[in-house]
């Protein structure tokens, strides 16, 4: 069989295994089997990619895979169970960094000969990737206690954030028509800055929602990479992540009886005004949840 088709088939199987794996997450008894299937899918995707015709040397790939595996394994073995949310945030930052770097390298290599479509995918990639890198790093720092966990607010925060956002969108559109090098790197910098500003005003207790949203952005960045490279497994896994992350953050907010806008932008308005707050928490719960929690309670 020809190599390109073989690669596509490994990607297809990997995509099916990812979907199966996440589907199995809907019940505690099947969840672990599902994740093993997803891990096999990831291995297949990596093995298939190694056959790619553009790859001429393997030494650096192997170096990268080995170093990454050692760090990743060390992080997951020695981190205490109570520090899991932080670790997930850190892992998220690394994944997004990879997508951002791939986007930057694509721009660097092909600048000048990029089509409007490809340029817009690269734009999306670095924008979502950049926001996720710094956003999850701030989430990590807040959960770890390196940064004050309470919402950080200051006057005119809204104006700063909105103008930064508008400027980034402006550059985004401009780059599609005129891919200018310096402006591109300015946009990457703005994405990094925006990630910090977006997460700082959110309290540490709401970090799971933020992380789920960041997960969604990281997925969308991967999906954009897939569009840029014409790689379907990247699109499937990335989009799947992007939308599941979004739904998950909405579900989490609903479990806390709050709206997602309240969680994300709740601190923005409260800089000067002191509204009456209802104390305590109220959690809505369904019969299925109670059954699940009772079955696994210790």
């Amino acid at each position, binding site marked *: 069989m020809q190599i390109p088709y073989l690669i596509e088939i490994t990607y297809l199987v990997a995509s099916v295994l990812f979907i199966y794996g*996440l589907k199995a*997450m*809907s019940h505690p*008894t099947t969840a*672990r089997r599902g994740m093993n299937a*997803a891990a096999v899918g*990831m291995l297949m*995707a*990596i093995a298939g990619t*190694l056959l790619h015709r*553009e790859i001429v*040397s393997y030494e*650096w*790939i192997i*170096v*990268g895979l080995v*170093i*990454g*595996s050692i*760090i*990743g*394994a060390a*992080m*997951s*073995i020695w981190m205490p*169970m109570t520090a*899991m949310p932080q670790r*997930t945030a850190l892992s*998220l930052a690394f*994944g997004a*960094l*990879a*997508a951002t*770097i*791939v986007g930057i*390298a694509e721009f*660097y290599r092909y600048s000048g000969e990029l089509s409007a479509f490809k340029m817009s995918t690269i734009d999306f990639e670095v924008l979502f990737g950049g926001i996720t890198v710094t956003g999850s790093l701030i989430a990590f720092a807040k959960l770890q206690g390196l940064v004050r966990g309470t919402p950080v607010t200051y006057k005119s925060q809204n104006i700063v954030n909105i103008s930064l956002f508008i400027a980034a969108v402006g550059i985004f559109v401009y780059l599609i028509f005129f891919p200018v090098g310096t402006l591109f790197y300015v946009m990457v910098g703005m994405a990094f800055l925006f990630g910090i500003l977006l997460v700082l005003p959110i309290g540490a207790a709401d970090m799971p929602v933020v992380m789920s949203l960041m*997960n969604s952005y*990281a997925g969308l*960045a991967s*999906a954009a*990479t897939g*569009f840029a*490279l*014409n790689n379907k*497994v990247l*699109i499937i896994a990335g*989009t*799947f*992540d*992007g*939308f*599941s992350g979004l*739904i*998950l953050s909405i*579900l989490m907010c609903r*479990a806390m009886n709050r709206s997602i806008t309240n969680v994300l932008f709740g601190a923005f308005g409260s800089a000067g005004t002191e509204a009456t707050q209802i104390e305590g928490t109220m959690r809505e719960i369904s019969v299925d*949840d109670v059954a*699940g929690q009772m079955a*696994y309670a210790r």
Partner: protein
Amino acid sequence: MDNETIISLLYVFALAAFQGYLVISKVPPLLHTPLMSATNAISGISVVGAIVLAGSQHDRISTILGVIAVISATINVVGGFMITDRMLRMFQDKTGKKK
């Protein structure tokens, strides 16, 4: 990239988005934390793009960027799957049959 390819990629995108919505909306809140970790592990799929970048030896800067990307993506993949497994193992002790 011709228009036909773009359209087929958009099909894949739309269907995957819908699939993501359907699968996740059935997960109980009990499993939200492992699920987040699981989707995080899968978002490490960007390792695929990173590998091609690191191996294509286009020029030195691309290779350096590629190696950094491979390292970070692998941390995400390996760490993500191992952590998810560690979390899910906590759910299995009760039944006594497995493990």
